[in-house]
């Protein structure tokens, strides 16, 4: 307990720590988007013809689509022609070994607290490092390869494992799924690819660290994870960006596929630059994440801690197709200052005896707005399906907003669906109790908030849980008094 408080104290004095920019020679396409730009991205990545066509057809779909406006967030219109869709550190070719990585980039990750080398040796976590539009390093590849696990950037996967990519890419989030998914499908630059073969339990956490560095760009990464029959993988995702006055767009697509008896655990600690205290700058995090439990008894579990981004628009979802499959969603969304978060999940129950559980905790402080938006849909064939949803919101201060927008659609009589939600103020009694025992007001708030989020934090892998707790403290800073 005391260590938690110390960690919090250590971090409540600082502002956004990751706001620096790395001076590295980058190759950037000029702003603007047309078929030519897409062809160029595709050519630059030496992609096969089918993928170029796939991108172009997504782009044509996108042109006819409308930007969604149902979410409870406001932002000035985005000029999609003002964004540069590809930015990559200039390097002759992908480094052969970790030693060949540009020292500037290496230093970037060191400053972010995730040194590429040490991470490999000490932490035992395999990491794919994505710098703006490209993956710059992937650790532990060889060790994983011994088990048949493929962990690489999606560009490499397109080259080395085209059959797998072609089979699964867009199978969960089709290019025309929504406006931002279509845009991503057209221009996606890099991201991670994971394939865990039959019966293999991945011995370490796999992780991707996303970093936006260049100005005037967006990041459009694509992640594809396939867990074959009876396999297990735990995947972590982290992200940061420099502090800038401009808003930068991050429109990612993540697709998960779990076959019979497979399990995927996907954890995110989202810490994109949230903008300053006046609400200037920050990342627009418009992300489509969806997993399909295609096999029987498969399981997909999403855990997210959302503290960053000026605006979050994100609904990690599960399609529970296989019989007895399980979907889980654990979320903490903390907003402060002028941040806006509209996040939640969708649980689509198709198979028999499918089960889902949703625990969503929203904390709003400052002048921020936090919305939980979720859908639980029980299809006619989902006999014996079960869902339990719990959404709690905590308000700190009288100028923020917390909202709950659940949709429940039931078409099978044997299904049991339960939803409960509460909204309340941070408890005066609890704060008083802490204060009377010598906690400063800020420490007391951080302690209560951590307790409020505990159910979700417990779902995070250990390395992430520590980081997530620190982040909660930082993000809350200045919200008291």
């Amino acid at each position, binding site marked *: 307990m005391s260590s938690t408080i110390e960690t919090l104290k250590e971090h409540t004095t600082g502002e956004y720590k990751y706001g620096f920019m790395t001076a590295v020679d980058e190759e950037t396409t000029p702003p603007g988007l047309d078929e030519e730009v897409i062809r160029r991205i595709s050519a630059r990545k030496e992609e096969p013809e089918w993928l170029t066509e796939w991108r172009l057809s997504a782009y044509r779909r996108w042109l006819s689509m409308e930007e969604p406006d149902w979410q409870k967030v406001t932002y000035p219109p985005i000029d999609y022609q003002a964004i540069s869709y590809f930015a990559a550190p200039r390097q002759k070719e992908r480094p052969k070994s970790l030693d060949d990585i540009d020292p500037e980039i290496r230093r970037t990750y060191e400053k972010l607290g995730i040194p590429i080398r040490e991470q490999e040796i000490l932490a035992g976590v395999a990491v794919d490092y994505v710098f703006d539009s490209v993956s710059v390093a992937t650790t532990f590849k060889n060790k994983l390869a011994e088990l048949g696990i493929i962990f690489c950037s999606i560009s490499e996967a397109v080259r080395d494992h085209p059959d797998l990519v072609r089979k699964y890419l867009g199978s969960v989030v089709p290019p025309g799924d929504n406006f931002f998914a279509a845009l991503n499908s057209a221009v996606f630059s890099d991201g991670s690819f994971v394939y865990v073969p039959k019966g293999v339990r991945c011995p370490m956490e796999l992780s991707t660290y996303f970093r936006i560095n260049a100005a005037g760009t967006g990041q459009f990464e694509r992640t594809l994870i396939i867990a074959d029959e009876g396999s297990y993988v735990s995947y972590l995702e982290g992200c940061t960006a420099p502090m800038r006055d401009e808003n930068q767009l991050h429109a990612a697509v993540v697709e998960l596929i779990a076959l019979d008896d497979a399990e995927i655990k996907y954890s995110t600690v989202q810490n994109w630059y949230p903008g300053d205290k006046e609400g200037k700058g920050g990342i627009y995090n418009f992300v489509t994440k969806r997993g399909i439990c295609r096999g029987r008894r498969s399981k997909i579990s999403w855990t997210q801690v959302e503290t960053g981004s000026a605006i979050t628009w994100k609904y990690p979802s599960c399609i529970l197709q296989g019989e007895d499959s399980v979907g889980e969603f654990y979320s903490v969304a903390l907003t402060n200052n002028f941040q806006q978060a509209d996040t939640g999940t969708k649980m689509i129950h198709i198979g028999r005896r499918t089960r889902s559980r949703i625990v969503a905790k929203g904390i709003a402080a400052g002048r921020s707005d936090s919305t939980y938006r979720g859908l639980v849909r029980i299809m*006619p064939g989902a006999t014996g399906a079960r869902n339990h949803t719990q959404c709690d*919101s905590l308000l700190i201060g009288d100028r923020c907003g917390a909202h*709950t927008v*659940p949709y429940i659609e039931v078409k099978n009589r044997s299904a049991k*669906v339960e*939803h409960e939600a509460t909204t309340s*103020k*941070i408890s005066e009694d609890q704060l008083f109790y802490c204060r009377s025992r010598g906690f400063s007001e800020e420490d007391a708030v951080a302690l209560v908030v951590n307790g409020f989020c505990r159910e979700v934090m417990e779902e995070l892998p250990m390395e992430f849980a520590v980081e997530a707790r620190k982040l909660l403290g930082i993000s809350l800073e200045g919200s008291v008094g």
Partner: protein
Amino acid sequence: MAAARRMIEPAPFYGELFARERARLPGHGRSELERVREEAFARFVALGLPTQKAEVWKYSPIARFANREMVVAEAAVPRLEDVSAWFGGGPATRRLIFANGHLVPALSHVGGLPEGVRVTGLVRAIEEWPEKVAEALAGCDPECSFTQLNTALARSGAWIEIADGVRLDEPLQLLFVHEGGESAAMTHPRILLRLGRGARLHLIETHAGTGDGHCFVNLVCQMALAPEAELTLDRLELGAAGTTLLSRTLVELAAGARIRQTAVALGGGFLRNETEVRLGGRGGEAILNGLCMPRGEEHADTLVRIHHEAEDCHSDQFFKGVVEDRARAVFAGKIIVHRGAQKTNAYQANDNLLLSDRAEVDSKPELEIYADDVKCSHGATCGDLDEGALFYLRARGLPREVAASLLVYAFANEVIERMADERLRALTRRAVLDRVPGGAALEAEGLL
């Protein structure tokens, strides 16, 4: 562009109908009323009819019903014995009885009310104080196209006004009989109700559908409660298969005012009940209970909006649905706590029994909160009858169907017992028993 698809243009017959009907509306030729009606109709056309892309109509295809060719319902004169079955209240209960949206003076009886109580049909109210009526109608609910349509075409309804401190102990009933005709006929009744400071009223509103044809009822109730006023509203809807009923109740509560509404929808091809309450003064209270039991192909949709605009108010929603066959129950409830509405206490519950694999329940319990010192929560459930409870009853000798009916009856009764009027409770229970397969057996066995 996205907004355009949420609304579609009203069918051309509406324009023709308005041009034709306006001369027949009460108070025709009075400039203030003419202007209000013209503006409302223009607003209706400008807004258009909502499609399912409109968020509040997501689960209910209203345009399918509202955009088919319709005529304005003609007056009908039912016999006393046709309507007495739906009488609520006691022997001294005053009633306004409407047939196809037209007041039937021969059956209505509102004489002998105490001083300070004015209860009259809308036509009479327009004759006597047209400015007041025009003022009440003007600018009401500008974003709702159905309210605008009602304002433009309301030909009858009720004016209820109770002076400060007057308490009416006997209930007042508004009884609507909607007869389905050959071609779908529409009516737009308007209820205008004002309770003075500390006034008290118990209102019963009943809707009964008859005949095999179609009718489209677009009812708007506008209620304003002065400080400390108290309104109890019992509503029972017993529509027929061809009944499309849109009922929109707008309630404004001043400080310390209270409303307690219990609405039961037990029949009608397409029922949409909207209640929008504004708690505008400190210490107001809104208690809303509701039950719907759609079966066959019926569609029952409930929309609730509670605006906590002032400090220290309390609201409680308790809604239940029992869905059979291919029917659909929709619930969308929203608690909105505005900035500054501290010490708000709000609760919302929506429980559903889904009794058929071809039926559907859609529930959307929402919270929208902009103040921190609040206690707001909601719960929503959906499931089948509890197997354990069924087993218990069957172990005691009840056939499965009877046991199931008993459980459904008990589930529904939790809402029915919140109705204030005893006679209406009895009527409602009767209707519930008629709706469950083992209802007759339950009564015969003396199990209730």
